């Protein structure tokens, strides 16, 4: 067993975990159940988090290698009382159905817009290519990212 300090959504946490644990299991164990387990093989993207601001599949990252790092989950972007424009846009466009892929989908969108505030549809697709959704057919997800990008750009002006 190991003990380590992790920063989740800006808060310092101490976790106890096994040497071979992956971040997905550890972060859920620590109560961050908004990180979802869909396949545990990097194939669905439901477990994506931002590690030092970079989008990764948390099932593909060993916990030990993330010690001391900043981790952001969807709960770190906004809350139901003060949602992030992306969270708002997903709600408004109908991009949320069962919602299981949604936290990771929003984080992917966030990572994309950080790098590229005004993405084309093709760039949106590329940015979200590791996140599977079985409910929506992605149409409204693309619409949501477009909507949020527009609003965030307007806000920055």
């Amino acid at each position: 067993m190991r003990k380590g300090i992790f920063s989740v959504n800006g808060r310092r946490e101490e976790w106890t975990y096994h040497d071979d644990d992956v971040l997905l299991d550890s972060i859920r164990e620590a109560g961050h159940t908004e990180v979802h387990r869909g396949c545990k093989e990097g194939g669905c993207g439901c477990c994506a988090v931002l590690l030092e601001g970079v989008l990764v599949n948390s099932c593909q990252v060993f916990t030990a290698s993330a010690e001391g790092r900043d981790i952001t989950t969807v709960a770190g972007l906004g809350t139901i009382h003060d949602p992030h424009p992306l969270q708002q846009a997903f709600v408004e466009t109908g991009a949320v159905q069962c919602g299981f892929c949604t936290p990771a989908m929003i984080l992917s969108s966030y990572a994309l817009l950080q790098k590229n505030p005004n993405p084309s549809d093709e760039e949106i697709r590329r940015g979200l290519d590791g996140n599977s959704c079985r409910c929506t057919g992605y149409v409204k997800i693309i619409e949501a990212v477009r909507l949020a990008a527009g609003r965030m750009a307007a806000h920055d002006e």
Partner: protein
Amino acid sequence: MTNERSLVGKSVKKIDSLALACGRGKYTADFSVENPLHLAFFYSPLAHGNILAIDDTPARAMDGVVDIFHSGNTRSGLFTTAGQGFPEPSPYDTRLFNSRVRYHGDIVGCVLAESVIQARAAAAAVKVEYEPLPPLFDPEQSGDPASPRLHDGEEYAPLPVPYRPEENVAGEVLFSFGDVEKGFAEADFIADETYRTHYANHCAMEPHCTTAFFDEKGRLVLYSSTQVPFHARRIVSQAAGIPLHRIRVIKPRIGGGFGGKQEVLLEPYAALAAWKWKRSVKAELDRSEVFTTGRTRHPFRVHMRTGVKKDGSITAIALDDLMNTGAYGAHALTVLSNAGSKVLPLFNKIPNVSFVGRAVYTTLPVGGAYRGYGATQGYFAFNQHMDGIARTLGVDFLDFVKSRHIQEGETSEVFKAIGEGTEGVSQIIRSCKLDECIDRGAEAIGWARLRGKRITSGPWVKGVGAAVTMQGSGIPKVDMASASMKMNDDGSFNLLVGATDIGTGSDTILSQIAGEALAVPLEKIIILSSDTDLTPFDVGAYASSTTYVSGQAVLRCALEVRSRILSVAASMLDVPEEDLTVEQGGRVLHEASGREVSYSRIACHSLYTRNQFQIQGSASFCGSESPAPFMAQFAEVDVDRETGKVRVVSFVSAGDCGQPVNPTLTEGQIEGAALSGIGYALTEEYLFDSRGRMTNNGFWDYKIPGILDLPVMKTIIVPSSEPSGPYGAKSISEIGINGPAPAIANAIYDAVGVRMRELPLTPEKVLRALQSKE
């Protein structure tokens, strides 16, 4: 009250979506319970065999192991995992722990341990000795006397339906009207074709999960990722031998179902283990287990013969379906029935019709409910078959369909003939805007510009194809839903429904229906679904029933509450009830005097002032018919003649679901179903090795379409009004998955002239077809 609707027909925000987008939605695996034990299964490594001995001694000695359950130590009765009404139309042909294994991946037993890792390690250490038995992989050989019989014990069908395990027949549907042979004799030509469809998986993003714990009264509470909480409670009681009143099933947020969670798979095991050890238990499948131990779409062989006269009239149609139900008969009879009952009524003017359907056992994964439910398989054959006949006649496919499909005011003999384990229900179609769906869809895809033009760019050739389908709205005279509602001090309402939102948005649309009936804004409806302790019964989320059946229950319930409100208001205002109207925003108005009273005053009056009582209501609904939604779907594809690759460029769905309660959610259902159907058509398949083991049980090799694969997707809602539906609504959740495979196959034919009769339409198959054509 004006006719202008305030909520129905409006794209209000899905009520749980903000919580889900902010990571606040809790799914079954997210609940922390006190000191849980964990369950891990061990499975058959053989397609078929008898268990001779199970040695669990070394596994029991491993760290953290609490118990191990298997046929050697745990007796369990026959039941079905199919989450259907009672008694189920599926045979009782399995036990929690069978002493005979019938497919590679069949559950042999499970380990209960302090951690998941310990449970899995011990599960791998249980030694099982088998007597191998011959496998049966080919459904065509299931009736062969030389083939093994998979169920030759006490298995039985709890309903009086055809069940002949001695012939490996898990279900049978026979029906005809007119004289098919005479019809064929009158025909100028007979189109005679065989189509084959394949295994597929639902791939809901959330794997199946159950979390069991005890409440302070010692009752067993199950959080479960289920589409059918009430069936789950009943089946847990039956299979695990726990009194039903000691069980509470709570459905939290569900990460998609598509039929895969209409199966009561994990709940009985988690309940059994928790009940024995009086501790919390968590059971969660990993993705590979979802593929092999979860349920699948039943593969079909569809043999279709149609007699046609030169003038284009169809004289007879004969459908002979062979369905592979795998090792157990979950949903066997009913999926099979739907392959006829949802398909044949579409061309209702054919005078001579026969349907012979047989569901047979094999030593392969188990079929189950899957969005489309047999109609998907049937329509793959039907639409290509009819496209071919139209081409033979030299008629445009769309014109061919328009002059033959069922219309408003018409019926079909099939409705009465084929039910779901019972006789069907006769009905007249009272809303059908399929012609408009066809016209608007054709316009959107560019039918006139593309059809038959074979526009070529290098090796790529363009084609366009269409498919038309219908489905139902619940199972008539079988599916029952109920709702209850009470009024609060401020004029808000608690709405309790058994209807099970699995991500579809049913909590939202049922709230819209209630809010519409009571003329209050959406936030005044506080909905809770579904909890077997709190909410009234509902069969659950399946058979395209929620909007129509549960919606009617909610509407009736809300109207009942409304009449109580009016009666209290009448006594408050001292005027006759019939002079009062309910006004938007929650007011009751006496128009003649201009006096009005708000809902909150009415509520407070009834709660605190005089003749006190709780304004409340409850209602149930069981449909006496199952109005069909209709859809026309269109695919524009490019086919690479040198590699066989098929690229779906554009896809259009135009559907009639009556009055859409929430157009955005309606579009979402269609778009999701359409893309899922495209995956089913092109890339999703179960690959087996020679021993019947699935070799691609993960997302790296079972390929579902991702965001990069999305074609230009257009969705058209053609409104109609279904007189029997709540505010004119019909269903929409399933139908959109039926059209993509045949529309794409018809488009491939349009592009390169090969008829693809076997799913999936992989590049290799297309290339082989092209080469054998040359």
